[in-house]
């Protein structure tokens, strides 16, 4: 029986909730049952956002048990590091490389971006760092990071789902004026992810 689980983590405003919906809807396109779970509300105000996606039979909890996720999709390196322990042994961590400094950092707290990348390299045996700024520039819209990241993870083979199913899910669920842009964003991410894991 096919199944997968993916934790998406980042900060408010990055479109993580929509990304998790796209992932779940794609799984449903291929006939899998799906669940997601996110913390919303206060989190929208620049706080940490986490979304769980589980697909396949025999899922009860909408939240992924620690140490069992197949994929950790970080939208920011520190937010990936924060949740690394949710990955199953052999799981893949795909994360955007640009650090986002919180207001507390401006007020004097620490944020050592290099130390966090070093930690990820050391403790995530399967790690894909996505040059998100470069891909965003290519796609031309800052709002598309979520679809780019889903594309990059899919291209790296993180999910047991065909690329066409993602494209179908985008066409079926996105508002018409955003479909084209998101199809392009997905394909851009997908090509990046695929290239990164091709020897």
């Amino acid at each position, binding site marked *: 029986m096919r199944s997968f689980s993916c934790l998406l983590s980042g900060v408010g405003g990055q479109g993580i909730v929509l990304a998790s919906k796209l992932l779940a809807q794609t799984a449903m396109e291929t006939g899998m049952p799906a669940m997601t779970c996110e913390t919303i509300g206060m989190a929208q105000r*620049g706080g940490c956002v986490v979304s769980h996606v589980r697909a396949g039979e025999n899922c*009860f909890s*909408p939240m992924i048990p620690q140490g069992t996720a197949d994929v950790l999709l970080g939208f920011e390196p520190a937010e990936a590091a924060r949740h690394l322990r949710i990955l199953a042994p052999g799981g893949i961590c795909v994360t955007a490389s640009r650090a986002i400094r919180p*207001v507390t950092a401006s007020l004097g707290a620490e944020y050592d971006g290099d130390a966090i990348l070093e930690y990820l390299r050391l403790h995530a045996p399967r790690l894909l760092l996505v040059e998100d700024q470069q891909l965003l520039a290519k796609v031309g819209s800052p709002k598309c990071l979520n679809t780019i990241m889903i594309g990059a993870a899919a291209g790296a083979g993180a999910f047991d789902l065909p690329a066409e199913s993602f494209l179908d899910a985008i066409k079926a669920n996105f508002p018409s004026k955003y479909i084209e842009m998101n199809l392009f964003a997905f394909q851009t991410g997908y090509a990046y992810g695929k290239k990164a894991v091709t020897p």
Partner: protein
Amino acid sequence: MKKLLMGNQAIALGAMHAGVSLVSGYPGTPSTEVLETVARNNDGSIYVEWSVNEKVALEVAAGAAYTGARALVTMKQVGLNVASDPLMSLAYIGVKGGMVVLVADDPGPISSQTEQDTRRFASYAKIPVLDPTSPQEAYEMIGEAFALSERLGTPVLFRPTTRVCHACQDVEVLENPQVSGDFRFEKDSKWVIFPRLSYQNHIKLEERAVQLSREFSAYPRNAVTGSGRRGVVASGVSYAYAMETLSQMPGEAKLMKLATAYPFPEDLALRFLEGLDEVLVMEELDPVIEDQLTLLCGKAFRKVVIHGKRDGFLPHAGEYSVELLRDAIDRFLHIPVASAPPTAPPPSLPIRPPVLCAGCPHRASFYAVKQAMKGQRAIFCGDIGCYTLGNAQPLDMVDTCLCMGAGITMAQGLARMEKGAHTISFTGDSTFFHTGIPGVINAVYNQHDMTLVILDNATTAMTGHQPHPGIGTTMMREVSTKVDIAAVLRACGVEHVATVDPLDLPAAIDAVKAAVAHHGVSAVIFRSPCIAVTKPGKPVAITDRCVGCQRCIREIGCPALTWADGRVFVDESLCTGCGLCTQLCPTHAIEGGACHA
């Protein structure tokens, strides 16, 4: 057809499938999306409103249910405190059409003041409560709640928790039947509460509880499976968490799934207890089922050890998780725990507390009051909304926050006792309409000396931008009369009322000084729309005149201003050009922003 639905959307569509004719409520996390989903999918045949508060919402729904219509009222758990007065009496009077009181509980709490348990309210009010374990079950159960309510002529509580409300699942959505819109209130003395009627109805309520306990023993969503000498009880999302572990070890424990904490299905529980030595009860918030089970063991002389919150086996506070319950089940079944090698802890990670958005007018309002009150003893009474975040550094402008509307009234008691301190309350526009107005009247009538600051951002921002009486639009997509806050204040007898744009910093500071100087009740209405519902302006720019003093960062804590490599940067994706920072830069190094610079 299967659709990916959030639990709250599933509940809304389930209520529509059950033929609901009126939906009222007051926004509150995690309940808000239920009413919004009905409104979004409404073809006009259902009446939907955001009421001014939960008490009003519940009474509107009760009126509808008196005619025979099916009515749904939605709120969060602390909203039920506000609505508890009509609920307690309505339990005695009853309804004609099905009436469901949806109250979303918030273990954690993730976005609430308390971890109160609505199932306790159900037993206190003596009305049945249904507790779904997943969005799919919630979709089906809400219809059962309407049917039960109509059959028994009583309001029924429906209590999902955050992880059911905000989880999404592929849910089988059915065609909605047509509902007749023909309802008529039949006059009868049974609708008028009097002590004698209450006495008679109290007897019926107790009889009904016994009858329902028997019925719920046969309710298919309550079920006993498996066998053995150890038994596990689980309800709500704890059932889903527990099944992650129990489904891996079939036959290890007897299991009772419970969807009705009140009235407690005693017959079913006795069958469950048969042959058991030990029981583990898993439920978030209060030990409601655990206490009922303990009571039952006493009544029926069953010698069973009950583990749960009362013996410290599981925590009282906070939300549960798969891991917490797996650990509890392992301890309960004496299964040695195979601990996975721990992942090395990450290096120091950034703390990301929720902050007021870049460009939020509340930041300017708080800063203006802070500047106006510099060097004077002042107590700042906050309230519930985005502006509670004004307590964070560097603003630090919220000294108290209790519950909806309490800022205005607590300021009065504080001022009476601490002589010489200025008390200033901060109240949002939606909160003002919710429970703020009686406090204003109290201040005027009892001649308190205080300043009311009304933060009017033209929306209910924290819960996702719902309209309110000051906006002039309704959930039926109609234009309505705007209730003018300044006119309300004047009508209540507030003599000094000023309305000012908080982003015009000098004017805002002057307005606060003038209001505080006024003896008696004074008010400043800071009017500036929430940035999430307005088009952002052009971002500001840092010029060469910046000397890197970081005053902008230190004073207002705007997330669009950051400090790196020895200079201040503006995050253009966040900055809305509100211009607050341009007005406080000592070297006038920040250019652009609104016209206030």
